[in-house]
């Protein structure tokens, strides 16, 4: 990583530390800073048992989505690629819809879904959607075919989710919460799930980052440099799917973080994919953490769905970038 990359990394870490303190102090019950934690056991309990896992979860989900976004944009050589490109969001939504719908059907079927849980159903739905995309695209060799298959799977599974909501209207409100994205339900178990997944995904992604650098010159150039393009693409697609599925399962469909975070990094520094992945994780984590704080604070004591904030902020940022660079987004 070059000097500017290190500088950006340090700035992001410092901002994350500041945002972390803020996230522990701000909540729907108001402001309770570090001084209150020592004096008031309830304030400490709220900070440790509610705000801390939620804030860490928000950071982890943001980092996972940003990693997926950086991978998707690299694998597909498309700056507009986002983590949900392979149909994982529609698959996760269908998984949740099926879970919620079947919970109300009867004790026998409900038992299976209760054990699986909404998060498990979202993860399974996401993974199965990506698997379906890979089958339809007949592997990962042709990125255009993969993109088209992802679009088809996304549209079809999205329609099935809508149909499920139409047939079982009782689940509509819960589905809305999932589809808008929320960090409100993240506890320590979710943090315990996302943290190791992020570490493993990041290590695997870093292992394939040089292949991704080479693939940015085209498949032929990468092959000539001894890169096994198909193998590398398989690994990277599976990593991005696992990272996306895990984040979606815990925090719902949070938009724009995966798309914006790598753009944000690239607008400041020119770095290789390895550095881009690390810096995107830091940027994505910070973005979602800040969005989470804003979601708690803006209309306190009520909360905004965090996905609405990321969509508004992320969309505004992309529009600003688009207007700023006459040549379009890079």
């Amino acid at each position: 990583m070059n000097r500017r990359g290190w500088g950006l990394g340090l700035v992001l870490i410092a901002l994350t530390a500041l945002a972390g303190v803020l996230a522990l102090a701000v909540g729907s019950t108001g402001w309770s800073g570090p001084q209150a934690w020592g004096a008031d056991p309830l304030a400490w309990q709220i900070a440790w048992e509610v705000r801390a896992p939620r804030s860490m979860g928000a950071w982890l989900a943001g980092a996972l989505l940003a990693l997926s976004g950086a991978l998707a944009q690299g694998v597909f050589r498309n700056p507009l690629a986002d983590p949900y490109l392979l149909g994982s969001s529609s698959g996760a939504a269908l998984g949740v819809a099926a879970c919620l719908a079947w919970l109300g059907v009867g004790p026998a079927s409900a038992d299976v879904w209760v054990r699986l849980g909404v998060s498990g159903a979202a993860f399974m739905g996401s993974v199965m959607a990506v698997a379906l995309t890979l089958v339809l695209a007949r592997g990962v060799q042709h990125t255009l075919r993969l993109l088209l298959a992802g679009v088809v799977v996304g549209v079809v599974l999205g329609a099935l989710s809508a149909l499920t909501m139409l047939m079982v209207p009782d689940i509509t409100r819960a589905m809305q919460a999932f589809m808008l994205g929320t960090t409100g339900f993240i506890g320590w178990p979710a943090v315990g799930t996302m943290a190791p997944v992020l570490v493993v995904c990041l290590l695997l992604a870093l292992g394939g980052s040089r292949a991704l650098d080479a693939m940015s010159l085209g498949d032929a150039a990468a092959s000539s440099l001894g890169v096994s393009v198909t193998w590398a693409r398989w690994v990277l697609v599976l990593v991005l799917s696992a990272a996306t599925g895990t984040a979606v399962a815990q925090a719902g469909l949070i938009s724009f973080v995966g798309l914006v975070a790598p753009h944000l990094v690239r607008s400041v520094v020119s770095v290789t994919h390895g550095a881009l992945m690390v810096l995107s994780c830091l940027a994505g984590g910070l973005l979602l953490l800040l969005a989470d704080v804003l979601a708690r604070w803006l209309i306190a004591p009520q909360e905004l769905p965090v996905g609405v904030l990321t969509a508004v902020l992320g969309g505004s940022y992309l529009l600003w970038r688009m207007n700023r660079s006459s040549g379009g987004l890079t």
Partner: protein
Amino acid sequence: MSRAPILHGRIQRVRHGRQTVLSDVDLRIEPACWTAIVGPNGAGKSTLLRCLAGLQPMAGEVSLGGSPIGAWPGRERGRTLAWLGQAEQGADDLRASDVVMLGRLPHQPWLAPPSPADHAAVERAMLATQSWAWRERPMGQLSGGERQRVLLARALAVEADVLLMDEPLSHLDPPHQADWLQIVRELVAAGRTVVSVLHELNVALMADRLVVMQQGRVLHHGPCDDPLCHDAVREVFEQRVRLHQLDGQWVALPVL
């Protein structure tokens, strides 16, 4: 007695969809020699070069150093044979030096950072192509010619025995075309083999050997100053070029 070829392509057929773009090619590339491939548009020049690099699915076989190219381990092949594609795009976010460092990928153990030898090879290659000055600039901010020189440096940084280049002179102005010629001459003098697809006939006529292609077949392969070679050039370009000798160098002029 002719030397054993460093590259030997025995290509029965290459198809793009239903169209046969290359057929019945038996081409021996001599070592320590610059071979230029010429022909009209759609003659199959780039496809032939991709076949020789082992990058094109085909019916037939290509051998590198006497062994089938497909049998070479990827990284070892990457160290032996370097490839520069036609107008390689992408990598806009990478710095020029990062792109050139990719040429060292076959030399580096997995996950190991670049060694001093890698950095030295990158510097040599960028100095040779006069692209060292903008090593810190992102590729997306370079002009077409600057970008082409960085990509050429990337291919040179491999320091391979065989260098295959598809239209390496695109976007280069005449002084930098001359620089490229100088680089090729130095590579050949050092015992390296260069094969290039060229649209610039006058530059191609400076090569040691010329491969003249037409409609997916090799019409002629021989020394550039061979009259038979000149006949083949005139034939594939429908007698619309005339070859003259100027200061001991063959030049091709269009016939109006």
